């Protein structure tokens, strides 16, 4: 059952097209991520759904109500802002109570709901504090609480982790999941960080230049990116993309990437005929290349270590193969000296192929 659906939403600021014909339907009780770089239109879309901006055309439905023309307060939508946007002159209690007061609930009901929400977010001891007396993470909880307390049909989160410390982020990700699972709250979450989507989302809508590039279950988007943009953006570290072209040699189908060749013969039947001879882009996720310092069984590529980059408790090794630089994922903290000869084994099935012209996925 879809709870939110936008149809043909378009918005233009001056000459810049911020949103172009956005169609999105979000299932009730699901966690949906709007993923995309700054300027992709995520925030604009959220603001239009919240009623803070008017779309130039298109309609927005929430449940069976058309909310396109309603003022923000009447939409039954909660929103958490990137900067938290708490009311600085009110206590935490008053901040949480304010949407309920505006709904004209009774004092007892307000008190009950504020207590429930603050208990859920583990901030019952902070109720009498002012926002400036709270840490960033606590302010964030209050902002979330203010959106949750009204039990809105939909909760919009606009890059809520951007202003928080690295450590609090993972705690908060857990918190968001808990919110969705325990309260069955429908969540639409905008973020530029693919890790957010990987960690929390049921479904992901990848946005770029005001358009939704791909919208599907998180795992499908990850394993079957529909175009080069989605492939390169969704994934951390980013997918390796290499220009290449197919060449037929007798019965063999060989992918020529200038610096190296890959024998695609085993998958020949799954490659469309017209792909042969046209310019393509090969996509290889860093985790699908297996690095070894001794010669493994074929197939493999060989190259030299350019740089080892330790990220958290994993390592991204940059390897030069011919003229191209490939990122390879190693799930351990390792510093391999630059210049060390290494071998990269791969499984053919794991590679992605895109049309270089249109960017669309071929397989």
């Amino acid at each position, binding site marked *: 059952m879809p709870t939110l659906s936008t149809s043909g939403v378009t918005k233009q600021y001056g000459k810049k097209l911020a949103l172009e014909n956005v169609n999105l339907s979000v299932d009730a009780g699901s966690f949906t991520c709007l993923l995309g770089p700054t300027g992709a239109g995520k925030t604009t879309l959220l603001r239009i759904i*919240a009623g803070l901006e008017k779309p130039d055309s298109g309609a927005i439905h929430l449940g069976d109500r058309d909310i396109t023309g309603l003022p923000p307060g009447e939409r039954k939508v909660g929103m958490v802002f*990137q900067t938290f*946007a708490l009311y600085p002159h009110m206590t935490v209690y008053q901040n949480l109570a304010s949407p309920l007061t*505006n709904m004209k609930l009774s004092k007892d009901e307000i008190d009950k709901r504020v207590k429930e929400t603050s208990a859920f977010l583990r901030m019952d001891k902070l109720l009498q504090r002012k926002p400036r007396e709270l840490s960033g993470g606590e302010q964030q909880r209050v902002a979330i609480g*203010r959106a949750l307390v009204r039990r809105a049909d939909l909760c919009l989160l606009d890059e809520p982790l951007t202003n928080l410390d690295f450590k609090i982020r993972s705690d908060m990700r857990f918190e968001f999941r808990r919110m969705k699972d325990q309260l069955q709250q429908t969540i639409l979450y905008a973020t530029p960080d693919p890790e957010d989507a990987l960690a929390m989302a049921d479904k992901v809508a990848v946005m770029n230049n005001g358009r939704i590039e791909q919208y599907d279950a998180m795992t499908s988007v990850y394993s079957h990116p529909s175009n080069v943009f989605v492939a390169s953006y969704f994934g951390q570290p980013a997918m390796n993309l290499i220009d290449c072209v197919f060449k037929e040699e007798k019965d063999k189908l060989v992918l020529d990437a200038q610096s190296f060749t890959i024998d695609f013969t085993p998958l020949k039947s799954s490659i469309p005929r017209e792909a042969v001879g046209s310019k393509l882009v090969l996509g290889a996720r860093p985790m699908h290349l297996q690095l070894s310092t001794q010669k493994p069984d074929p197939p493999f590529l060989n190259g030299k270590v350019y740089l080892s980059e330790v990220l958290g408790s994993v390592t991204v090794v940059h390897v030069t193969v011919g003229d191209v630089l490939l990122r390879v994922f190693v799930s351990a903290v390792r510093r391999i000296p630059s210049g060390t000869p290494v071998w990269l084994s791969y499984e053919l099935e794991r590679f992605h192929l895109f049309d270089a012209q249109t960017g669309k996925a071929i397989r």
Partner: protein
Amino acid sequence: MRANLVVRFVFIVVAAVVLIWTLFPVYWLAVTGVKTQTDVLTRPPVWLPNPDWHFYRDLLTAGGIATGSGFFSLIDSLIISSGTTLLCVIFGAMAAYVLSVFPGNVPTGGKSMAYTILTFRMFPPIVPTIPLFWLFYTLGLLDTHASLIIAFTTFNLPFAIYLMKTFFDDIPRPILEAALVDGYSPFKLFWKIALRLAIPGLVSVSALCFVFSWNEFLMSLILTATKVRPYTVLLATWMTSMEIAWAHRAALAVIGIIPPILLVWILRERLVRGMTLGAVR
């Protein structure tokens, strides 16, 4: 070390000269107010008289020739200044709020509005005073508190709006947007959120409006006659059948200085914060 001392010495001398230059009139005023009738105009002047408070007593209590006019002129000024301040703050805050938060609801998005408002303050006050005289004459409002309150409000409101707007502009937009999403109506948003966050602005605007009206002379002179007489007008025109009431004027002037100083003193912290908040954007 020596050079340093010289610099210090020069600095102190210059500071002292400036200080004396600035404070001498105030001192002279204060001293004149407590002189006896005969000492006021004697030559050489009496620098430190034996204080005689009877002019002040005359002003503030019943009795003596000048009683009524002095005391009541202060009351008149107080009524006019408070009335003006109140109106400017109320209407100024509301207008500024709309200009700042809902510019879409104002013709031309409020862009030319701020400019129009400011030009209002650019022509010399005497220019509109003559037509205002006829206007109030026709309305039968001459020589009333209302006439001056209306006139001062007309002139201070643009400034109040403009200054208040910078304070509303300083409120982070997400706070206001969050409030809209939370179901605050535009008026409730103004009353419960925006106004509370613009209190330093409110304080600055009230202080400045009060001081402007308190010190205003030209319009007061032209639009009032006998029933209403702000203290600035009385200061300039005060005479008794016997003399030009110098000592009375001095006493009145000293009392007249007190309210603005007191106001700014009480509000100083908020005022300074307000001024810088409004200025640094």
